[in-house]
């Protein structure tokens, strides 16, 4: 099996689905690039080259560059989805959701319920998230908890290239609106990814490590850090199960609860701001439904409740890392003694 980058995995998923289904279209700012300009066509393929090569293969009728008008084109994706197409809209940075949120949550997310189950809105919003790029406060946020909060939307957050391909193909084939999160510092990550199309079902968590002592639930990029910590502590005889929920809506509650029942200890790692994030949500779930299994208080590893800072020194302090996860795991182990 060939090694592929996260970027290639996304590109391949889009290309395969566009070949398979002529109703799949892409739209977004500079998804091809160079529209109307005198230089090269397909000049960008998105700001980080993720959609490069798709316009030459599928043409500008299916890979649509847009003006910088997120409300209009994200809303257009919702409208197109409700009327027979399967659009994949690119919201360049999830921070820009503020410009177009109404079209996502009041329109696309509610069509089916409000219209008595008669609407089908198979749209995907691909969007970049996360800190670590020195991109400062308006280009670094996580914000997936916001979408997770909103009924009618599904939220996928792949943790690796393999996950990205399978979850994106599932997202495109899914008949509900899906917000698909791509961490901007993960695009060059590589792992073996099958050439053929495959789907990863939503709402089925993946156990990336298995151990008897502590359950670590980690979201998106944080799964890598959790794995590192699990590998390190295994050598010391501390066994960690790492749960990658893959989607926060739907959330695989059963797997999380089962793991906590088995280990009795829970650390949740979430790069999103600490209030009302996925960590607090899972903490509430476990407190309500597996309280008696807990041998130690739940620990949440998150950034502080601040905007994402620009200066490298501050951003590095901001992002949860392996050290904090390890400290949290050791603390829940220590709480037993």
């Amino acid at each position, binding site marked *: 099996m060939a090694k592929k980058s996260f970027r290639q995995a996304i590109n391949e998923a889009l290309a395969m689905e566009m070949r398979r289904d002529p109703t799949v279209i892409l739209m977004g700012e500079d998804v091809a*690039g160079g529209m109307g300009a005198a*230089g090269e066509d397909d000049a960008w393929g998105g700001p980080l080259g993720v959609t490069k090569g798709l316009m030459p293969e599928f043409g500008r009728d299916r890979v649509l560059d847009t003006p910088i008008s997120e409300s209009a084109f994200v809303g257009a994706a919702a409208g197109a989805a409700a009327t027979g197409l399967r659009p994949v809209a690119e919201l360049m940075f999830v921070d820009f959701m503020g410009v177009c949120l109404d079209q996502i949550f009041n329109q696309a997310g509610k069509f089916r319920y409000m219209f008595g189950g008669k609407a089908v809105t198979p749209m995907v919003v691909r969007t970049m998230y996360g800190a670590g790029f020195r991109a*400062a406060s308006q280009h670094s946020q996580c914000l997936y908890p916001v979408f997770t909060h909103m009924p009618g939307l599904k939220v996928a957050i792949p943790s690796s290239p393999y996950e990205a391909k399978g979850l994106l193909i599932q997202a495109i084939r899914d008949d509900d609106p899906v917000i698909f999160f791509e961490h901007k510092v993960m695009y060059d990550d590589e792992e073996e990814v099958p050439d053929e199309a495959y789907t990863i079902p939503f709402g089925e968590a993946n156990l990336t490590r298995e151990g008897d002592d502590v359950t670590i639930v980690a979201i998106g990029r944080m799964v890598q850090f959790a794995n590192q910590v699990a590998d390190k502590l295994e050598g010391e005889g501390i066994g960690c199960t790492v749960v990658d929920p893959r989607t926060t809506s739907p959330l695989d509650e059963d797997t999380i609860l089962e793991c906590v029942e088995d280990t009795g200890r829970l650390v949740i790692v979430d790069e999103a701001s600490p209030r009302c994030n996925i960590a607090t949500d899972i903490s509430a779930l476990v407190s309500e439904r597996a309280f008696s299994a807990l041998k130690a208080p739940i620990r949440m590893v998150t950034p502080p409740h601040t905007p994402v800072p620009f200066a490298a020194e501050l951003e590095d302090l901001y992002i949860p890392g392996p050290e904090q996860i390890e400290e949290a795991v050791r603390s829940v182990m220590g709480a037993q003694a």
Partner: protein
Amino acid sequence: MLQLSKEDLVRAYTQMRTIRDFEERVHEEFAGGSIPGFVHLYAGEEASAVGVCMNLNDKDNIASTHRGHGHCIAKGCDVKGMMQEIYGRRGGLCGGKGGSMHIADLSKGMMGANGIVGGGPPLICGAALSAKTLGTGGVAVAFVGDGGSNQGTTLESYNLAKVWNLPAVFVVEDNGYAESTASSWSVGGSQIKRAEAFGMEGFEVDGHDFFAVYEAARDVIAKARDGGGPSLLHVRLNRYFGHFEGDAMTYRPDGEVDGLRQQRDSLAIFRQRVGETGLLDAAEMDEIDRSVAGLIDEAVGESVAAPPPTRDDLTTDVYVTY
């Protein structure tokens, strides 16, 4: 040369040269790896920021864009503080927390560069409302790009400014490209007709010509200050660098930037026109060039040596009280 005094001309030239050198230097330093993050440079567009802001004072507010360094300098922000901010230093204008895309100095009426395209025009409606309500005599100016001109926020702001009769001016800086997309494609209709559709006057301006911008801005700002309501300037200009640093600019034809640098250089045009008047001679402008070069050298040197923020800074200034 209009009614500009020698002092005004010196100020205008100094600011334009400062912007040019600042941006050329940031380009070099970024390429050398010493500046992190996303940086969008204003080189080539100097006459717009300076031509507009020469008509403003510290009570007047501007809102900028992601391409904000030129607006900051033209509005009087401290150049060394800006450079430190771009380096992420504790001594930067925003303590190193904002960076290039969020430089601001409210004491100078500079309401911030902005990471959100179209983020500025609504803010400027608010600043203009404050000026009107509080009777400060101030005006507020939104700089927005050709890309930002297509955001709903911008078009809604045109309407709001008109119906509230706000002392606001919208300056659409059209450098030909929204990121990689040509403005000739992405803008439906025309900027002037858009203004007129909302009941505003709109004027096309050659953004390479400081004097053209100055004159056009003087008139619409005076009108706004006198209670005559909002107007729009469509300033046509060019950027010498990419959308962001690192942009290979393959969407631009070969030789485009070289041609612009040779034929559409606002500083060269300024020098030629001022030289013809005899108000400011080449030697005086050369001296300004040397002085600005020294300032930029100092700003970079001090920024490299300056300390970063501390761990304690991470959690300060999220709220006033909490």
